[in-house]
């Protein structure tokens, strides 16, 4: 993980964990938000953040990266056969919490939803559904 990807992950986590509407759905004061994979035995539903492209130079000035882009998949995961609530509300809250946001104090130039994401899994006869979006996040140079 690079400095910029750590910055992006911290920002996403902070935004999601401070969303009161989400908290009630994913565990309250200790929200179930995980990077890459949830711990075994985690209750459902939870939010999973996957750094698809953790960080790449986005704008080069004189051969030096002035900003970095990252592509992050952020979705609610539930043990269910349906994309309906609570998964739908979680996905809507993820979108409203991240899309179109910026935070210059924390070096986040912007975050946009590039594509909505819905995914079905069947593991050992158990159904899981994922619902959320793929976000492009741009950071300022981190030194």
């Amino acid at each position: 993980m690079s400095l910029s990807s750590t910055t992006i992950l911290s920002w996403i986590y902070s935004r999601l964990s401070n969303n009161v509407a989400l908290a009630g759905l994913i565990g309250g004061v200790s929200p179930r938000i995980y990077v890459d994979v949830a711990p075994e035995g985690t209750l459902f539903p939870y939010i999973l953040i996957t750094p698809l492209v953790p960080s790449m130079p986005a704008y080069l000035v004189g051969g030096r990266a002035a900003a970095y882009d990252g592509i992050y998949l952020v979705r609610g995961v539930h043990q269910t056969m349906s994309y309906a609530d609570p998964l739908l509300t979680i996905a809507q809250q993820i979108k409203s919490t991240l899309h179109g946001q910026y935070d210059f104090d924390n070096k986040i130039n912007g975050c946009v939803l590039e594509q909505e994401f819905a995914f079905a899994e069947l593991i050992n006869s158990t159904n899981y559904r994922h619902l959320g979006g793929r976000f492009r996040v741009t950071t300022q140079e981190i030194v």
Partner: protein
Amino acid sequence: MSKMRREIQLTSYIPQIVGHLEGLADAVDRKTAFDVLAEYQSRARRDTGAQVNSAYVATSNDSTYAQAIAAAREANPDLQHFLSEIQPSDGYTYVAVAVEYAAVNEFGGHGRIGDGALTNAVESQRAAFEAARARLLEMAAKESL
């Protein structure tokens, strides 16, 4: 005094210019697709090799699907089921992977970490693709003057 008739024939070269640029745009799309494919095959998880071998490029005119499936079967003869071939509309070029489990390897799942190999492959070619497209637009602007 005799009457003289003059005719001026106007020839439009626009169809030829458009055809030429469309051909170049197709070539750019095609090269980008094969570069994405190669990047994906170098980045993606490799167990039996069936997943990376099953990746293919499809346009409205042709596809490498058959060769990809043959290579995937050779890598893992036990694999029976492959996703059906994508049939792109005119002007579209796809890079696709023909095994179902590629999605969970790409995006991750419940209990599985995603590697984002195809997303990374696309992003690795984005700058070159956009630069080539920008050059085509410049050519189009010059030729239309």
